[in-house]
């Protein structure tokens, strides 16, 4: 069953929510119970009632197998890391952890790998990689299986994020909630859920039926331009709405997942945009790919200048981010497009700083924001696949 897509789902959601809130009120919502609620909801979300016979639960088994596989890798790597630091061991753990996602994305769909595929596999993989990187950097020195599986499969966010970080998540689990904090969490939860309904079921649904779908079926340059804006706005309201549901439900259960969108269309430049759009994914790439690459490149003197290193880091980061969405030409082009924009922005920004062009006027700000929006929309047009 697709989460947050039908009123039947929201009805079912009331069970873990009411149980969780009542227990939390009496201070009895332990990580163990939270794991129990998560397992129950994962079974609900991944079973296919309509399917006949043995197929009804195959995705549940795929999720369970995936979680145990990742747990085994993380635990084994933790054992190794406690004894020695070994780059090959680290990369081996990363490759093993990426393997199911890579198989699902690369191998053609009819080759039997569909058995291990499930909705959200790319999001969950990134959570497991976060743990491996944390172990490598000695930020994670102990791992409880219960906590790990709960982090990986936490049901409000399992299917499409936000991609939480293990240490942040574990911090929330460890924090006792007073009734006052609980009420504040519920308040935040209700507000997020209301925003989710408004964004997803009102704005996104209206854009889809009255603008996106008519533009999709029309041909010609003007309808493509119209489609570009419709697609951008639809994607934002649908995904931000979904994220608001996930964050809201999580908050009620004591997990304060960070925001995934922060008024992205008001971004002043492309760099600012990536601090506001799909934040949990962009910060994951920023911390785990971009900054690691820059650190390694600077320490190892891989490039003759810092500028060249940063341009290389942008391309590596955004190429991988493009591929994360799927192995298709349009995602690769989308990644390269954004890497190019960021490189240009970065070089231009350095030039401005060097020549003492500090504060920009209001006119510049407005023009820059409008231009950023246009560039972002065009990027999503590439992403949508309409250009072929």
């Amino acid at each position, binding site marked *: 069953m697709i989460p947050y897509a039908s009123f039947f789902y929201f009805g079912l959601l009331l069970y873990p929510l009411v149980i969780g809130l009542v227990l939390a009120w009496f201070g009895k919502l332990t990580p163990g119970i939270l794991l129990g609620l998560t397992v129950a909801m994962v079974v609900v979300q991944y079973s296919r009632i309509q399917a006949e016979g043995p197929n009804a639960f195959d995705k549940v088994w795929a999720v369970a197998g995936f979680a145990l596989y990742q747990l085994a890798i993380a635990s084994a790597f933790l054992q190794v890391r406690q004894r020695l630091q070994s780059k090959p061991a680290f990369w081996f753990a990363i490759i093993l952890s990426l393997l199911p996602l890579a198989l699902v994305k690369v191998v053609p769909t009819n080759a039997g790998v569909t058995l291990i595929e499930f909705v959200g596999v790319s999001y969950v993989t990134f959570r497991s990689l*976060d743990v491996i*990187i*944390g172990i490598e*950097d*000695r*930020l994670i020195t102990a791992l409880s299986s219960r906590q790990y599986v709960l982090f990986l499969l936490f049901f409000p966010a399992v299917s499409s994020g936000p991609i939480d*970080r293990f*240490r*942040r998540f574990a911090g929330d689990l460890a924090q006792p909630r007073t009734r006052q904090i609980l009420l504040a969490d519920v308040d935040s939860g209700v507000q997020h859920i209301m925003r989710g309904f408004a964004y997803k079921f009102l704005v996104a649904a209206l854009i889809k039926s009255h603008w996106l779908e008519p533009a999709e079926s029309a041909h010609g340059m003007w309808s493509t331009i119209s489609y570009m804006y419709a697609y951008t706005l639809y994607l934002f309201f649908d995904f931000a709405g979904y994220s608001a549901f996930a964050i809201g439900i999580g908050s009620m259960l004591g997990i304060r997942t960070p925001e995934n969108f922060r008024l992205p269309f008001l971004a002043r430049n492309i*760099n600012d945009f990536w*601090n506001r759009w799909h934040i949990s994914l962009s*910060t994951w790439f*920023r*911390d*785990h790919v*971009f*900054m*690691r690459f*820059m*650190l390694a490149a*600077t*320490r190892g003197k891989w490039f003759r200048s*810092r500028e060249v290193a*940063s341009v290389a880091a942008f391309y590596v980061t955004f190429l991988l981010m493009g591929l994360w969405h799927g192995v298709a030409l349009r995602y690769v082009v989308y990644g390269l497009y954004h890497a190019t924009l960021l490189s240009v922005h*970065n070089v231009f920004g350095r030039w401005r*700083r060097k020549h003492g062009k500090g504060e920009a006027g209001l006119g510049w700000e407005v023009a820059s924001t409008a231009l950023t929006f246009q560039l972002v929309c065009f990027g999503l047009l590439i992403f949508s696949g309409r250009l072929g």
Partner: protein
Amino acid sequence: MPVNSERRLSIAERVIEVLAEVAEDNVVRTDPDIPLFEQDVLDSLRTVDLILALTKEFGVDISPAELDRSLWATPKHIVAFMEAKVGV
């Protein structure tokens, strides 16, 4: 203890010195509460430089994975982070 507080002061001063150099901005010396990322004093690239410079200055490992931007939001935050790291 006076000795201890002197040591704390010197770590704070060293952090601010490194930060001012990396950010190429003296505002960090005068305003310990300036939101570094919001005000564009720091971005990802300069954060990398800062990690390298602080690692060199204090001889401790800093992982980009531990830099929650809320932890490094202001000069004051970075000082507190480094004090905890160096173990004052």
